[in-house]
């Protein structure tokens, strides 16, 4: 039962990164790829109807994590107190940047909200990458299951590490590039003309960065946490995940050079899902490794809710997800196709 909920929470987080990832990415490239008021309005309209729903995957995943693994929620959220609060501030600023843009006219106001939207999107991507880096590197868990990390110490990977060290910063940059590319491919599928070609160019040069970091981060990561390799050694089907990452990476390059934006976007989604899935597969059954002592690792077993609660939760979770899938299919079908500055909405 704990394993099942581990998979379900991981799926919700992957959904979050793939879906909100493209509107975060659209935010990252917003100031560069969209120059005129018409182009910027086009980007906002491309994500306007869906961004809030995408972000809900983070809230729902957080709620589900709280419900399924309360000890993990308590430990990680209090341990990452400062960066999480900053993520909250960024999420708030970004939401208001998008929503209030439609309520105020005038070039200064629009530049103001565009700037907030873009900067907060970029910082969020970096924070999320650094968060994943922290989970992989491990945190200084104590015997009582709690820890507290300052934002940074000496930027070295070690038992006294802060939230930011060279490894987690690297992962932050990685996430920034990966989501910028993901967002660029999404913007390319939804737009035409100048903005479309700028988005494609962004996807083209970020691809090289992503490919480079994919190849180099693997040995670095395995050096920092060799245990990640154990599950792959034990279960052959785990190798399907790196295969998916590789296929996604190749697909992004190939389909983009053919000018097939949709297929390139799907490849990018597969790539992101593979990267996260691969990390989750390697970590299992640990959910938060301790850098202090492996006995203090938080695992699915020592953090989970009671069995009855987890079973009854499965019933409403499935009902809720069927409904949610329905809303998303309806919404994305309704807003399918290219948008322009004069499209109705936002």
């Amino acid at each position: 039962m704990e394993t099942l909920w581990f998979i379900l929470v991981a799926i919700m987080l992957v959904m979050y990164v793939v879906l909100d990832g493209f509107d975060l990415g659209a935010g990252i490239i917003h100031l560069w790829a969209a120059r005129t008021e018409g182009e910027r309005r086009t980007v906002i309209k491309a994500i306007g109807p869906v961004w809030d729903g995408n972000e809900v995957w983070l809230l729902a995943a957080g709620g589900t994590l709280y419900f399924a693994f309360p000890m993990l929620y308590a430990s990680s959220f209090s341990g990452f107190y400062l960066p999480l609060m900053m993520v909250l501030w960024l999420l708030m600023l970004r939401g208001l940047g998008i929503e209030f843009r439609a309520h105020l006219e005038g070039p200064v106001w629009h530049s103001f909200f565009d700037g907030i939207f873009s900067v907060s999107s970029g910082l969020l991507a970096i924070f999320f990458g650094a968060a994943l880096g922290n989970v992989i590197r491990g945190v200084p868990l104590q015997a009582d299951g709690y820890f507290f990390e300052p934002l940074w110490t000496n930027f070295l990977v070690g038992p006294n590490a802060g939230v930011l060290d060279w490894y987690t910063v690297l992962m932050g940059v990685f996430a920034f590039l990966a989501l910028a590319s993901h967002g660029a491919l999404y913007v390319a599928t939804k737009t035409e003309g100048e903005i479309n070609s700028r988005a494609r160019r962004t996807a083209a040069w970020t691809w090289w960065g992503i490919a480079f970091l994919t190849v180099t981060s693997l040995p670095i990561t395995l050096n920092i946490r060799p245990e990640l390799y154990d599950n792959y050694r034990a279960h052959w089907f785990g190798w399907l995940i790196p295969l998916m990452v590789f296929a996604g990476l190749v697909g992004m390059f190939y389909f983009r050079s053919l000018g097939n934006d949709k297929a390139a976007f799907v490849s990018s989604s597969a790539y992101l899902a593979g990267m996260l899935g691969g990390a989750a597969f390697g970590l299992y059954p640990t959910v938060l490794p301790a850098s202090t002592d492996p006995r203090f690792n938080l695992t699915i077993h020592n953090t989970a809710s009671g069995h009855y609660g987890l079973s009854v939760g499965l019933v409403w979770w499935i009902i809720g997800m069927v409904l949610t899938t329905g809303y998303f299919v309806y919404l994305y079908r309704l807003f399918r196709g290219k948008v322009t500055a004069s499209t109705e909405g936002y």
Partner: protein
Amino acid sequence: MESALLVHRLHFAFTVTFHYLFPQLTMGLGLLIVILKSLALWKNDDRYNVAARFWARIFAINFALGVVTGIPMEFQFGTSWARFSRFAGGVIGQTLAMEGVFAFFLESSFLGLFLYGEKRLGRWGHWWTAFLVFLGSWISGFFIVATDAWMQHPVAYTQAADGSLALSSFWGLILNPWAWWQYAHNMSGAVITAAFVMAAVGAFYLLERKHSDLAKIFIRLGVVTGFIFSVLQLFPLGDQQGRLVAHQQPVTLAAMEALFKTDTAAPLVIIGQPDTVLQKMDNPIVIPKMLSFLTYRRWEAEVKGLDAFPRDQWPDNLPLLYYSYHIMVGLGTLFIAALLVAVFLLWRGKLFESKWMLWVLLLSFPFPYIANTAGWITAEVGRQPWLVFGLLRTEHGASPGISAGNGLFTLLGFMGMYLVMGILFLFLIRRELEHGPDIQVR
């Protein structure tokens, strides 16, 4: 400010109080907008659509602020109240996760369609989006109130070996009687806020001699729903809530009334200042025997005072609890009086000419916000010193490793952000009021 516990409490109190200024309007307005959209369909009168469109824009601004200020609430359970989360997450994780799965997806998916899809969806389609947004916000409200109700009156749990709680009955949690009375009381409060705001905007436009057609719709709907829900709010909803407190948390009742000594035929204090040092009431104005009657339906019944309970179980901020409770009840009573006059004038067809009554309606819109906030302060301060009543004391719920310095850093950050957001909010609302209703879809 050197106590981390105090900082965490202020942190949560500040962020949740600011947050709830927005959902209390959107939950109530959600219902009023559905009523407007229904009237438009039923009477085939486009003025109601114009009215709904105007309120949708006010709704959108409030909703955006409600969403962004709501996200920190869920997160703070983990960041600042980690030991509480570990203790109770096995039970209230259910309601909090269900809120995300059943309410947030629904709201976020259909809000954009409701705000920007009127042309695309047609009359019935647009009615449905309004309804689904309303439904989502009310589902969200239920799961949050159910979580709080469980903290007030914990049910359906078993204790594991490590001390943490596990759910023992799903329906026991969902059907917690406290949850349903508190939910009804809370939602009725939200409708009252929205009704007063709607009537106030209508009164403003009539006094300014602008948009008078629509202003009359606003006033009529606001005054009538406001009156109905103000009456319901006192009886049966507020009365039932009070009786639950009296039976399940008698020490809280004694503190709310500042009843220091156990008394038979206890009087109800209308106004007076509690002196916690000498343990007496200064300058009281009372209704004799009324407290005994309201609590036990008998004029001579004994009501337990604070002296019947050990000192370490008294709510730790008695004056705040006493005042917030009395402010809530006092304002609730005044709402009924004011709206009774307004409904009477409406019935006699004189309301729209009664300038003084329009002024009363215009100036009264802040008070339901105060009453709702005071009500929540009563609920939360009244539960002290417990985080989960009878099971977990507040000082045992905070995160172990967050220093007061780190907590104050983020509290100041939130204060700064909310100040700027509050100013921006007022600016945007003023712009919408200035702009007024649109006849065409914008």
